[in-house]
């Protein structure tokens, strides 16, 4: 059963320039999804809608069969989804441990150790960590959350190629271990390769490639 579903999802900033229209998508637990598309194709907008940061102009998003607006967008963001951002978005005056405790006050250092941080790094201010280490903290924070869906926007965009590959592998592995649904917006073919389903957004419609053939969702 899909954990997250879009039903006839439509969004536009102006009526004469629709970003996408009548998208119907299913996202399942334990699967990795990559959304690809040219700049301006609406990848980030779709991620914002899935994350409850914005509201659609038409259609709805359901979490485990319930409209997220009925759940309440704040509550939905708190307990149903977690985010990983390109620029890490950690709270700067906190340590990695404290950043993780933002989502789970009782979190142990285990998750942080699993993403490769040493005990010394775990207690250090996040600004004193490298970009790769900061992104590991962001991943640990998303994993520590009880939310079953992780939304990642260009999580490796600020990292060098080797680190990016390492981080992607880490995210995929740990998310699968925890049976989480991961939806990644990326330009990286490497990230796409690591995912189970690739979603290509272009011209108001989306192509879904799950390895068993391509399906097009455009509402027609």
């Amino acid at each position, binding site marked *: 059963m899909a954990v997250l579903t879009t039903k006839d999802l439509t969004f536009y900033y102006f009526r004469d320039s629709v970003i996408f229209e009548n998208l119907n998508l299913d996202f399942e637990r334990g699967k990795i999804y990559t959304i690809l598309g040219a700049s301006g194709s609406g990848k*980030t907008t779709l*991620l*914002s809608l899935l*994350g*409850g*940061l*914005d509201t659609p102009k038409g259609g709805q998003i359901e979490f485990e069969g319930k409209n997220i607006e009925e759940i309440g*967008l*704040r*509550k*939905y*963001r*708190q*307990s149903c989804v*977690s*985010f990983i*951002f390109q*620029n890490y*978005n*950690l*709270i*700067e*005056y*906190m340590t990695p441990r*404290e950043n993780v*405790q*933002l*989502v789970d*006050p009782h979190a142990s250092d285990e998750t942080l150790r699993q993403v490769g941080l040493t005990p010394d790094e775990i207690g250090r*201010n996040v600004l004193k960590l490298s970009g790769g280490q900061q992104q590991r903290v962001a991943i640990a924070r998303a994993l520590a959350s009880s939310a079953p869906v992780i939304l990642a*926007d260009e999580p490796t965009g600020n990292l060098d190629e080797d680190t990016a590959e390492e981080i992607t592998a880490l995210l995929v592995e740990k998310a699968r271990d925890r049976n989480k649904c991961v939806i990644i917006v990326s330009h990286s073919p490497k990230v796409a390769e690591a995912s189970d389903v690739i979603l290509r957004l272009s011209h108001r419609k989306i192509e879904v490639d799950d390895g068993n053939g391509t399906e097009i969702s455009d509402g027609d």
Partner: protein
Amino acid sequence: MSATQRAWLYVRRNTKRTILLFLLFGILMTISLLAVALYTASRASVSELRERIGGYIMIQTGQDGKERTGDILLNQLKQLDNVKDWNGVDTYYMYAEGVKLVPGSYSGTGEAGECMPKCIGCLDTSLHERFITSSFQMAEGRHITPDDVHTVILSKDVAEKNGLSVGDTVTLSVVEGVRDWLENAYGTQVNLKIVGIYATTHNEPASPSTPESELQENIFFTDSTTAKELFVIRFPNRTIGDYTYSSGIMLFLKDPSRMDETVSLLKQQPCADWDGLVVTPNDTAYQKAAGPILKAATISRFMLLTILVISIVILALILLMWTRERVHEIGILISLGRPAGDIYRQLLLENYIVAVPAYIVSVLISAILAGQLVSAVSGASVQVHLDAVHAILILACSAGVIFLAVLIASAAILRKRPREILIDLI
């Protein structure tokens, strides 16, 4: 992680901001505490002064001299509503035997006048204008009261010049050449016991035309009974019932703001022919004494209002600036599903955590400075101290100002839709 824990971490780890905020709060709170203390002390002093001095109505015999201001009239008028106290004042001149006065430009009355002080007979010297306005203050002994007989208060200068002190006796006598005394009174002597010694507090410039007897140091205050005895000696065909308080009767009011109303009521009394009396409402003593204190009250009220406005503006601007720098952090917290109230609570607590120690330090500093500020501001003799009520009042006001400032500063961000705040995060 709770808002309190986040606030505590923020305060601990942003030491520069915390120190700056601590100093800002400390300065504003100290000034506020001092202003409140001064304002309250000034108001209390004005109120006490109004009660003590109030205004008074002077009633004097008119030019035709027909209507007299004696005890019969005084006993009627002191019953009036709004009359708190009264005094009868008589002025006369006597020869003070063997007493050396403070020398003046000239004696004014010939040979005998060299030792002739101005005598003021009073029912109650504490209600004489010289003492009310503090131009004279008791240095030793006590005031003359209505029950005193054959008592005198003289100046410290005269007492020192003649080696006199409280308990000693001075003799006043009638000698030839002293104004309108009748011949049969010559040689009359009255022994007066010194019950008090006054000190002058201000220099009163004397012109070359001021006679020695009019110098402020040469005034002898006597009791009213003595003045009445001398009246009978002076006018042998009159009785003590004819005695007139030559300088007038003073009626002191409980509430000087009802001066006009009381004067009207007074003139309706049938006990006197009011056309033959001069009624002068007078609150100059109050105005003179209250002037510096009212000035202090006005200054402190202005300070308070200015500080309140400036505090809110400065705090709001600084917090707005600092809060805007934290859009990123607020966005992260929103993406984690934190409610706006929780984020606002964190911002508020961050300020309260700094404000509380700043307040404690301010109270300590203000308590020390309170007494010294008053003379610097107004020169008025106002007893200033910081009491618990003022301190709690400022604490409550500060909490309110911070609450408002944080609300104003954070409202601009928290009112936005999450996507607008997070636009730079995604």
